[in-house]
């Protein structure tokens, strides 16, 4: 009993130490004023027709990207929020200037659908496995106790293989 307690407190302390170490490291962020500019120019498209992100358009003499980047710098300098900047760009260049759908109106569906599908599929899979597991258990019970219980020698042999190979089988 006391051994279990000692082990529990060891794991608890280890977990606390890990959490503390991670928290300390996470909070050590250095300031960088260009990060927002970089982030925003990677959320907008170049409108010259090159189908590239604004920050990645590499056409010499591109008539659009230079102007857009200058506008972005000005907007950031004016203290506009991300939302205001995107609104200004959309008003000027149209909705396709945004590199991703917005999070309102019909566009919201673009973001929701993948997670909704994933969630529904995950839930469905879990329910299906649980149902199958129930069916298997019922089938084993119906077959009688001798079908459920394995030969003790066989179990011991399997456990030995598990121990030695770290698992029981592969693909």
């Amino acid at each position, binding site marked *: 009993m006391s051994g279990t307690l000692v082990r529990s407190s060891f794991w608890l302390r280890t977990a606390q130490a*890990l959490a503390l*170490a*991670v928290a300390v*490291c*996470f909070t*050590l*962020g*250095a*300031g*960088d*004023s260009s*990060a*927002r500019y970089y*982030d925003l120019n*990677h959320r907008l498209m170049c409108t010259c027709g*090159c*189908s*590239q*992100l604004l920050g*990645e*358009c*590499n056409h*010499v*003499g591109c008539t659009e990207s230079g102007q857009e980047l200058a506008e972005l710098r000005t907007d950031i300098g004016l203290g506009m929020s991300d939302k205001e900047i995107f609104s200004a760009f959309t008003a000027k260049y149209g*909705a*396709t*200037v*945004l*590199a*991703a*759908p917005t999070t309102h109106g*019909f*566009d919201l569906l*673009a*973001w929701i659908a*993948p*997670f909704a*599908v*994933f969630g529904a*599929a*995950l839930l469905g*899979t*879990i329910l299906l*496995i*649980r149902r*199958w*597991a129930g*069916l*298997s*258990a019922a089938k084993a019970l119906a077959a009688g106790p001798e079908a459920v219980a394995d030969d003790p020698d066989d179990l011991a042999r399997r456990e030995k*293989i*598990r121990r*030695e*190979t*770290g*698992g*029981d*089988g*592969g*693909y």
Partner: protein
Amino acid sequence: MATFGSFALLIALALAAYNLLAGTLALRLIAVGQPARISPERLADTARRAGIAGFLAVTAAAFALIWSVFTNDFSITYIMDHSNRALPAAYKFSALWSGQEGSLLLWAWLLATYGFVLRLTHKTDVKLYAYAGTILAGIQVFFLAVLNFAAPPFALLKGAIPADGNGLNPLLQYPEMVIHPPMLYLGYVGFSVPFAFALGALMMRYPGEKWIKVTRVWTLVTWLFLTAGIFLGMHWAYAVLGWGGYWGWDPVENASFMPWLTGTAFLHSVMMQEKKGMMKSWNVWLIFSTFLLTLLGTLLTRAGLVSSVHAFAQSSIGTWFVVFMGIVLAVCIFTYVLQRSHLKSEQHLESLVSRESSFLFNNLVLLTACFVILWGTLFPILSEYVVGNKVTVGAPFYNRVAIPIGLFLLLLTGVGPLLPWRATSLKSIRRNFVLPVITLWATVIVCLAVGVRPWKGGVFSPGDFYALVSFAVSAAVLTAILSEFLRGAGVISRQTGRNLAEGIWLLTRRNTRRYGGYIIHIGVVIVVIGLAGSAFNQNVERELGLHDKMQIGPYTLEQVGATQDSNLNYDSAYALLDVYRDGKKQFQMTPEKRVYLASDQPQTMVAIHSLPSWDLYVVYEGENPDTGQPIIKAFLNPLVGWIWAGLVVIIFGTFVALVPSLSPATAALRVPAARPASNQPALKGGD
């Protein structure tokens, strides 16, 4: 030669149609067992021989097109549009797939080649191969009909024949472009074969799972071609497009990725069917979907439904593909509904935490990823249709939605192999997962300590966060896989007295499929580490006068001159840049800008200095028209080399998985009887 090529295509179509009709009739007669004037077996054999002759006819057509390119036959519109006299010989080959008609001919030729091999090896299982051959003939009829009536590659030019052609798209004049499209097409077309076997096996209610064993090599080889094709495309985009990246979530890239995801899901879940007789319907639909996605990808990129920087060849053949996809889907649904009783599972899953359920979750995640990409690719069309407003679905969308799903999949890569079949216990989980979990958290702490933090300028940075998670999960997965190798090798080592390396070798030989799979997973982890490096990319763009310098990372680039060159195909201008590190000159880089004479189109040729830690990637963007000074853009891209190294590991792992395992008898012979170090009984390899 144009007449010869056109005639060969017509003959090929006639032969494919005969193969389809005679094959269908013969198989129908065999199925109903009715007496007929012609022996159905002999009729089926004539169909098979027509398929073989069809291969020769399509080969003749492909040869005619190649010959026309090499002889500069500009009377053919296709040659006129995709070649010129000064085009180097290697790129004359790539003219075959640089346009719509040529790439369809390549598709038909590869399909004919796969069919040729299949029909030659028909004695493996005559009836099953007859079904598969007939289904392949149906697919071939479609492609040959398109080639004969909608996109003829030998159409003649109207009016006077010009002295020279328009040349090949400069983007395609790069070594990878000689092998990337054929690889990709080998992958795309190759999925027709497992599709044909699956549909055939379902139609004939094939007993047992032998068809899966028959198609395993086909599927794995096809998957390898598609994987290599995708990576070669990534490398081409990296080295040619000059934007410093390798994957832009472009619709064409997405089109190749979707069948790869479903094909990968099939390769995993098919093991459940082989071993447990489970997921039969699921597997059949996975391979149906994979084949349909290869067609959908072609439709998306060829029909101009979505805009893409890669769309080299667009036309109006979309309607043909829509109709064909409709027919294929109808045949699949009809066959499935008719024969679904044949696909009942023999067993069910017994536990939520087991190897079987990990396969199921793996499939779930792969298919979700496929759905996300399909959804993102089609959403602009949907949005325009529903609200009349076209939107862009670019990299930020996929990075937010697909990356978390990808990381979950990576996690499963490590978790799955550690779970036993049927069911597991808490004790077993604890035993198997302690080391990977410790590695995961240790990696998190080390990464945070060295500066990989999810904060950039006090703002949460998803890129850095994903990089941190990728490194940590990759480390955990590597630990899990390596511990699997070491455990097994340790047992062999104790049994035989061999060293650990020999133990790993013998372990792998005993179950090549299992350990080949693990090697592929290691390759995937290496790729993920390489991808995660992109969170730390740096770039600088500057106009550099003579002896001007620019700094990127630890490197200083000095412009020391410029030079020009010219040949019959293009004029080029180079910037000469000396690269210094810690004040010492290391090497010189010569990024290039070309202007192709036939098409008068410019093209950048990037200079890349690759190290395991990063790539120094320099683009000569051209001259500022106002000052005449060269504009240089330099990137420092961490860990990119790992992506290509990962591909090499994946290829190696696939080859290992393709090698037959040592049979227990052979394995026993390889273990010298005189050397056992213990008296433990010998274990069978793997499962």
